[in-house]
């Protein structure tokens, strides 16, 4: 139990640091939201009046304290630009990015496990050799380039999907998921390649271990040894790797949302930063941090469940 409390405490501290960093950062960024709203013909007095109204002139700590207080009560403040509460604004965008993250996470898991098992089973044979080359290449391709290739190949030539034809989940969930498959794959491929390589080398290490020889001595066939005995031990280092990729998946989703025209949290984040829409940016950053850290904790729990040797640290 102590472990869980320690982890949550760590999460809270990290979140505080994240939100402080963001709040502080926005003080430094040039550009003033009031001017951004009033546009070109806002006179100086109007800008000052608006700043006053938005409370921008109050000291930083007071504003930060107030923001944290509201945030804990679920009120993330109102967007400067859209005159709408941040929750509504982000509310319908979070499921999109979360769905994409989950989709790419599971793709990474499935792809890396399947491919590396085959390559270990037929180690040093043709499949393994090809796998190594393709794998290394896949790791070097940026997700947005994959996105461009997918758009060109599947979108414009094969017309398997309409580029930019995002379908919102309210209208048709099937279409929604369907459209997200390619973007998620674009995010997942490079990560899956890395995970596959890691898993392959850790599986090969495990194959050298004594308990594998004992398993064989009991009459287990190679597949059974691989699936029943080795996989469970081999996957441990990969799980920690996956834990670390959570932040990368979201970072890449920001770029891929751009390529496929998906109104996810990422794009809103980019446009809000350029519009100096602080409350929206704050909320998104903290949410991204929460999702990343929760994922890390899930991964730790999964790791502990699989490998009993690790007592409560």
């Amino acid at each position: 139990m102590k472990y869980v409390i320690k982890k949550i405490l760590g999460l809270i501290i990290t979140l505080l640091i994240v939100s402080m960093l963001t709040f502080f950062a926005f003080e430094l960024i040039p550009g003033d939201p009031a001017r951004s709203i009033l546009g070109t013909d806002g006179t100086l007095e109007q800008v000052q009046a608006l700043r006053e109204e938005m409370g921008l002139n109050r000291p930083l700590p007071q504003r930060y304290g107030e923001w944290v207080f509201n945030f804990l009560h679920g009120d993330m403040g109102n967007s400067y630009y859209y005159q709408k509460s941040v929750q509504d604004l982000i509310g319908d965008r979070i499921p999109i990015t979360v769905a994409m993250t989950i989709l790419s996470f599971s793709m990474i898991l499935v792809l890396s496990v399947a491919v590396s098992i085959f390559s270990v089973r037929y180690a040093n044979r043709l499949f393994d050799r090809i796998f190594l080359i393709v794998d290394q290449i896949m790791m070097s391709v940026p997700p947005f380039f994959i996105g461009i290739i997918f758009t060109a190949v599947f979108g414009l030539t094969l017309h398997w999907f309409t580029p930019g034809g995002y379908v919102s989940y309210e209208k048709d969930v099937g279409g929604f998921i369907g459209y997200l498959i390619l973007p998620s794959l674009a995010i997942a491929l490079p990560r899956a390649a890395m995970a596959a390589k890691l898993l392959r080398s850790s599986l090969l290490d495990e194959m050298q271990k004594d308990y594998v020889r004992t398993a064989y001595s009991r009459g287990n066939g190679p597949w059974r040894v691989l699936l029943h005995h080795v996989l469970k031990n081999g996957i441990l280092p990969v799980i920690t790797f996956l834990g670390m990729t959570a932040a990368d998946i979201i970072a890449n989703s920001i770029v891929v949302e751009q390529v496929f025209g998906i109104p996810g949290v990422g794009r809103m984040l980019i446009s809000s930063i350029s519009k100096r829409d602080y409350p929206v940016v704050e909320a998104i950053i903290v949410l991204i941090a929460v999702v990343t850290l929760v994922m890390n904790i899930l991964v730790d729990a999964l790791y502990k469940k699989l490998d009993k040797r690790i007592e409560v640290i």
Partner: protein
Amino acid sequence: MLDVERLSIHFEDRGRREEAVKNVSFQLADGKILGIVGESGSGKTMTALTIAGLKKQRAVIDGGSVCLDGVDLLTLDDAQMRSVQGARIGMIFQEPMSALNPTMKIGKQLEEVLVLHAKLSKEERRNKVFAAMEDVELENPRELYEKYPHELSGGMRQRAMLAAAIVCRPKLLIADEPTTALDVQTQDGILGLLKKLNQKYGMSILFISHNLRVVEKLCGRVLVMKSGEVVEEGSVEAIFGNPQTEYTRELIAAIPDACGKNWKDGATVEQDEAVAEEIAVWQGEAVADENAMEKDVLEPKKVLEVCHLNAYYREGRVRRQILQDVSFTLHEGEIVGLVGGSGSGKTTLCKCVLGLLKEYDGVVIHHTKRPQMVFQDPYGSLNPRKTIGWILEEPLKVQGGFSKEERRRKAEEMLERVHLPKEFYKRYPKELSGGQRQRVSIATALMTGTKFILADEPLSALDVTVQAQMIELLKELQEKEKICYLFVSHDLDVVHLLCDRVLKVEGKTVTSMYG
């Protein structure tokens, strides 16, 4: 029952062809126990693995046959061989720590053999597993069923592996050095079990070991192998009574025997000192009559004094006491054994002596310069990325005041004192054998000019013949350099041979014992 005819195997390693087994033939009758003895590299393990169908791809069988009840196993395809493995041949291995799957429950691993070979319901399988556990004298099998390997001690794990091997009542059990990694009590336990299984189920056992004492205790017949060939074969009495071949005689001579010392208990500190002088004199005579060296019989200088030491283990705020009121004194030129079961506080004592652990009160006084240590695992004790010369010179660099040439000369001189060629100066640790590395560790310790070396099981990872040479070196340094060793070991034979007196750590206290 098992008939091996002219079996020969070679290794294909980057083009070089290495003969591992050269036409080995032997028989193992029903219900008998055959021991295969030989140093590492003699091909005994390779032979055993081939019989059990576990040889590596890189090893190629050139010829010969392995007939089990008339069926030549070498001709079976994978599927047929799998039906034999586990059902008709059971196998246990040397390292209990890593031979069981760390993330799978014990019960499940035992049950697996039945799942593969017997068509039984879950309930029947569980009962068979519990029966097997009782056979190997594992207490409360139901509870153990749910446990994981890391929750069991080394001995229990070895028993669990044994249970898994015999749960299908195989005709043949192959044991590849099952006792080497265990301490003496658990070792006898396992040997007793093997004997019981042999009698109870008439299970024939092929026992592979490099420890002749154990083979002598257990086996009916013995096969001696050297670099892939059978050098001698015969009953235990014949082999140990009058060994025919030169090599066998050499092996038997190398067994460290206890030469009949019996240890008295409960001596006090004062008695320690009195006896220490007597020993110093006694050693003096022993050395004197050999090369008549003049021996200064001054009162021997103290090296280490430990008075009323209480050591604790801190976990968060909880402080558990490990050692209570420990006092002893070590003198120059004295080799003192330190024995005790694992978890008895032996390691904690060493850490306190070396100053690595601060959680203690009481006094530890070193009369020499910094205490040094020689480690058990030769592969970890030297910095793999540095040359031997660099490692030897490090203590001098720390003390400072030596020029480059002086440091080099001292290093080469030290290499000679531990009987290593000067060329090793430029070599890297991975180019040296286990024994040579331990010599470098000792040399490095001496470079600091210390008179006290704590040797933590320095010999257990070495082959018997190499162990003998190391013992000679330790003795030589004791006399010439007046080095005092605190010799940690669980191999009582070596302790008896080497140590003048022994400190036994038991139940938080340390008692002195004299030969």
